[in-house]
């Protein structure tokens, strides 16, 4: 198995925004005739480079709007980089807004199969794993109920249980450390720790700096789309705290 599952080399990502952004085709056509359209690039991430090794927990910190989530999505293949190159070796489990793919009208069981398949797993495989996933989330009794009647905590638990059911080579976690009640938080934390110990490379985005100090091996500080520094958690978090004041 390769020792460097995640390689990010000089990656930049631009969102394309039309100045006077026309929301409708009619407006766009009018502006086009008046020659008022200029496509502007909004650089969310610029020249970011880093690697995440096997079993390493790599945390991204920075203020809101720094481009942390964008950078995560580039690694998770959701957004193709505008420049630079991303290589991910092995399977990747994204935990970004858990349960975003749930359909409210479908039952818990149906959603397990659908969401797991969206994450790249085989539907047959998901049908077999459904009971285990429901059990782990503590939702076995709610499998035949449409998820629109679930509470937000139940949805988050189900989402985490599905996304963490496999043993991925790379785990991408965006602010989902606080899922469900106290008991479930412990349970999910333990599961993530077990994954890390088994060699999963973890990319973590969070504003909970205590968690970063507790879990991370290395930290990247992102500011206005640029890498401020990469280094030991104590050092980076310390300097970051100083800058925030």
């Amino acid at each position, binding site marked *: 198995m390769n020792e460097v599952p995640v390689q990010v080399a000089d990656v930049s*990502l631009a*969102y*394309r925004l039309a100045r006077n952004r*026309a*929301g*409708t*085709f*009619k407006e*766009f056509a009018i502006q086009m005739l008046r020659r008022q359209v200029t496509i502007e690039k909004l650089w969310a991430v610029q020249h970011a480079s880093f690697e995440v090794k096997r079993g390493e927990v790599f945390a991204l910190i920075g203020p809101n709007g720094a481009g942390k989530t964008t950078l995560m*999505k*580039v690694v*998770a*293949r*959701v*957004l*193709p*980089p*505008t420049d*630079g*190159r*991303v*290589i*991910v*070796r*092995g*399977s*990747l489990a*994204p935990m*970004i*807004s858990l349960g*975003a*793919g749930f*359909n409210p*009208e*479908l039952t818990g069981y149906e959603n397990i*199969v*659908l969401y797991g*398949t*969206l*994450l*790249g*797993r*085989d*539907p*047959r*495989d998901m049908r077999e794993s459904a009971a285990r996933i429901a059990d782990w989330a503590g939702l076995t009794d709610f499998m035949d109920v*449409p998820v629109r009647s679930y509470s937000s905590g139940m949805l988050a638990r189900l989402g985490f249980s599905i996304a963490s059911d*496999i043993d991925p*080579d790379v785990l991408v976690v965006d602010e989902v450390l606080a899922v469900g009640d106290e008991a479930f938080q412990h349970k999910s934390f333990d599961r993530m720790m077990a994954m890390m110990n088994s060699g999963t490379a973890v990319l973590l985005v969070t504003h909970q700096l205590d968690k970063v100090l507790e879990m991370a091996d290395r930290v990247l500080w992102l500011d206005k789309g640029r890498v401020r520094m990469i280094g030991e958690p104590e050092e980076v978090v310390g300097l970051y705290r100083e800058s925030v004041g």
Partner: protein
Amino acid sequence: MRTNTYYDSAQTRRPLLTEFANFWSYRGLLRLLVTRDLTVRYKRSILGVWWTLLNPLLTTAVLWLIFGKLFGDRFATEGEPYVLYLLAGVLLMTFFSQGMLSTGAAITNASGILSKVYVPAEVFSLSTAVAAGVNLVIGLVPLVIIQVTSGVGVPWTVALVPIPALAMLALVTGLGLLVASAAVYFYDILDITRVLVQLVYYLTPVFWPISIAGRFEPWVKASPLFSYVDVFRDVAYRGVIPPLWELAMIVVSSMLFLALGVWVFSKGWKNLVGSL
């Protein structure tokens, strides 16, 4: 597990090849999405999925009342029952119009998923087009029943129905992807599409016989959709081998629009998810 567990963003995308490879490798998801499309819509209704069967029948009934009865024999079709003519036309054109609208909205509707999890966006467009096609297949049941009860019978050419049906699937997928790619940037593209689709519906002989067009007949026949509907009627109940030019028309137009739609999607793909 996903078969391909190696991602390199520098891998070049090959328009058409990449998309068709994705259709194949995501066929499991495709099947789930099609079932979801077909069932979720009627989840909170009394008749449930029976609506897929009822919808074309009710449309046909209304059109039959107005144009078959109210207008007397002005819309009468020569040598074939008007009800069959109507139902066959409604079935195929519903595939087109519903398919165009749902496929055009497929990518924007899936934005919640597409902006969080990597799934090829084109899979969502194909799934809605296929769902519209499944509705056509279900609609064949009442068509055959009417054929049998009205004494027209079921000709052997019914075995050729997949030709116009698959051609329509390719057309809807291609044109739908074109609309879906544009709808990411401009929401009102879907409204414009709705109007255009309706226009095409009325300009195609669905409830009126071609003889009514008079000197406009060549123009009506110039529209590719005329050929789709006519070929479908020929094989579904007339028991006639369709003219070669009509077959050529549907094969060429479907392949052309499929390639165009997929190609345009592929060219705009890089900025697609970021713009959702």
